[in-house]
């Protein structure tokens, strides 16, 4: 059998797992691994400028491809810097393997230089973690790490490797396991046939149905199955923030995103629904508003791969269905074909009429409601971005008002096209995630929709973009303040902007972009927005930083009225639902 060092074993394991690219930052504890990395050519390493970005980039890579993202960081500060990235991936169920170095085994627990208890620090935010205790166990640990990360409900797995486990002179027999068996871990591979039948029966009884699809459909590669079933039924479909793209955003059957900043028609439909079909969604507090008032008349079917997601917040689930959404939806389509039962068309027509009424009344897409002439409106930036990119770009968002505008005003027709930190809400996510997306899709347009607040949280990655020629387009909605914080301060704190403004100390983003070797563009005139945007996307090989000055006082609407039900919404600065 082949003899390899621990460092070489890690690299070989990555190769065996089909990993082409990893994101990392070297340091003392991982130097042996980096030396092994240097001496092979199947895995490319992308050197980021901060470990948080390494994990976000691996995350973006994974979100846009469905493959496991891999990051490599050193011990101590390298590991703790990775924590935000790991928590981001954990909240959104993104499969990652994060390899962290640690001090040599005999120094663990001695407060050695750059020592951190990474297993302890990361414990609440990983799907699982491994501390490597012997060189021999490395192949098995790596195999398990990848298996756990990508199967069932995906998530990040940390592999913590003490430095002595990778010493080049310590060679051990290497054989990569072909299969993995964990007696304590067997995620459901199929849904229960009886429950599927029950779910379908309930769906067909509905007169005011809504299909509520979440990130699980995207992660479970079930968009096609969802679309087929939805079309067959003719029911309205709403997506969560994480589910955007699971059903085509430009389709008439799509009634928009739901939740806190969801579409009026989507939230009204949910509230009035008699049957809700929840697919790969977890009834997050940003969706449900007050769970006690959530959809009082709805009978609910809930499909999820994770049993713990079922009945966690909303308790009245009539048909729980544990299983991978892809196979469950495929089974439902097949069963539907055999049953030859059709939904109540008359009731459905009336339901669509009601929904279309809501759409006309307060829908996002009606007329010029948000268009002003003197200042650029943030919503218009997203509309123009949609037009200029033909709706085909990967949109990587940061966190804040711009994120909600990007979720509302760009129509995502494909899964994995929309990349954002939904669960954790991590500012600084957008740019590094976009790097991962761009590297995975070198020919595609990749835009970072961000704000002058978020972009400054990982702005050092502009340097990584230079080094690896990643021509991402940065669409900076500059309102010279932490917009979402300011909006809440407007709404609930009498306009007292505590710690949310910095207008006199913002950098000149154009010069900053140029300093990194990129193209900078300042846009203030609404009349020029579209031509400048076209110019930006015509520079296919360049990073372009579009610093777009938008109305600083704009709020994101509609918005749930806190503690209310799904239907209770603030519609504009002056209107609310009754």
């Amino acid at each position, binding site marked *: 059998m082949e003899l390899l060092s621990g460092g070489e074993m890690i690299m070989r394991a990555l190769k065996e797992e089909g990993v082409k690219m990893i994101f990392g930052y070297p340091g003392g504890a991982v130097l042996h691994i980096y030396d092994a990395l240097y001496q092979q050519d199947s895995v490319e390493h992308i050197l980021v400028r901060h470990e948080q970005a390494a994990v976000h980039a691996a995350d973006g890579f994974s979100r846009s491809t469905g493959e496991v993202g891999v990051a490599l960081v050193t011990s101590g500060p390298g590991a703790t810097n990775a924590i935000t990235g790991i928590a981001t991936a954990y909240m959104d169920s993104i499969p990652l393997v994060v390899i962290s170095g640690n001090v040599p085994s005999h120094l663990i627990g001695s407060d050695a230089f750059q020592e951190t208890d990474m297993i302890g620090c990361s414990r609440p935010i990983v799907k699982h973690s491994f*501390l490597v205790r012997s060189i021999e166990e490395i192949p098995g640990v790596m195999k398990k790490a990848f298996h756990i990360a990508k199967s069932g409900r995906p998530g990040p797995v940390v592999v913590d490797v003490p430095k002595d486990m990778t010493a080049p002179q310590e060679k051990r027999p290497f054989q990569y396991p072909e299969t993995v068996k964990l*007696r304590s871990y067997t995620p459901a591979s199929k849904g229960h046939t009886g429950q599927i039948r029950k779910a379908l029966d309930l769906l067909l009884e509905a007169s005011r149905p809504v299909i509520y699809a979440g990130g699980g459909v995207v992660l479970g590669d079930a968009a096609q199955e969802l679309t087929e079933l939805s079309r067959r039924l003719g029911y309205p479909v709403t997506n969560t923030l994480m589910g955007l793209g699971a059903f085509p955003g430009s389709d008439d059957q799509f009634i928009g995103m739901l939740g806190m900043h969801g579409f009026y028609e989507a939230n009204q439909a949910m509230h009035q629904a008699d049957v809700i079909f929840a697919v790969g969604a977890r009834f997050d507090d940003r969706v449900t508003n007050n769970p006690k008032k959530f959809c009082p008349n709805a009978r609910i079917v809930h499909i999820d791969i994770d*049993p713990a997601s079922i009945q966690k917040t909303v308790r009245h689930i009539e048909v729980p269905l544990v299983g991978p959404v892809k196979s469950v939806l495929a089974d439902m389509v097949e069963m539907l074909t055999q049953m030859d039962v059709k939904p109540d068309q008359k009731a459905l027509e009336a339901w669509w009429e009601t929904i279309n009424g809501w759409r006309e009344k307060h829908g996002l897409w009606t007329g010029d409601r948000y268009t002003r002439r003197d200042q650029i409106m943030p919503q218009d930036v997203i509309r123009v971005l949609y037009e200029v990119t033909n709706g085909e770009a990967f949109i990587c968002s940061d966190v804040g008002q711009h994120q909600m505008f990007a979720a509302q005003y760009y129509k995502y027709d494909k899964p994995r096209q929309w990349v954002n930190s939904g669960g954790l809400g991590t500012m600084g996510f957008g740019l590094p995630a976009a790097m991962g997306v761009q590297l995975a899709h070198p020919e595609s347009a990749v835009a970072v929709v961000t704000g002058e607040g978020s972009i400054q949280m990982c702005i050092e990655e502009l340097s990584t973009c230079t080094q690896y020629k990643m021509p991402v387009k940065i669409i900076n909605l500059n309102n010279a303040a932490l917009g979402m914080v300011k909006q809440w301060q407007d709404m609930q704190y009498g306009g007292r902007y505590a710690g949310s403004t910095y207008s006199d100390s913002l950098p000149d983003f154009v010069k900053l972009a140029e300093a990194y070797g990129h193209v900078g563009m300042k846009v203030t005139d609404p009349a020029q927005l579209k031509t400048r945007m076209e110019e930006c996307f015509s520079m296919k090989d360049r990073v372009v930083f579009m610093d777009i000055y938008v109305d600083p006082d704009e709020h994101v609407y509609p918005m749930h009225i806190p503690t209310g039900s799904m239907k209770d919404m603030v519609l504009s600065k002056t209107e609310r639902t009754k």
Partner: protein
Amino acid sequence: MRHIISVLMENEPGALSRVVGLFSQRGFNIESLTVAPTEDSTLSRLTVTTIGEDGVIEQITKQLNKLIDVVKLVDLTEGDHIERELMLIKIKATGTQRAEVKRTCDIFRGQIVDVAPAVYTVQLTGASEKLDAFIESIGTSAILEVVRSGVSGIARGERVLSV
């Protein structure tokens, strides 16, 4: 309601911290906790008593089941079961008190396992309420030290928790 949840988990370093961490992380409460290896050295058995409404208990069992190190678990309070807790208790025993402590100890079927001129150390086994009752009978002013093992439990009849 009080529940006794019995967990079989991998006898691996770190497994216990994952279970305990889960409880604090998700705001679940722990009344008592015991853990030791089983006859199969690769497995540990952990017993946790907790108090919560049905929804909370459902989440506790589901979230525990999600931990990779957890092999199997059962909520013992869902069926007939036996629960036991061991207590060692040091009691002031001087003068007339000495006979009184001995009598109380006999009533509760405890055993005096160590004797000093002014102190008895008593061992008592039973359900938690019995231990509470003994403490109450002795009275806190006479008690010098109490150590309780936490609850261990097992299902009655033929039901077993095994791999």
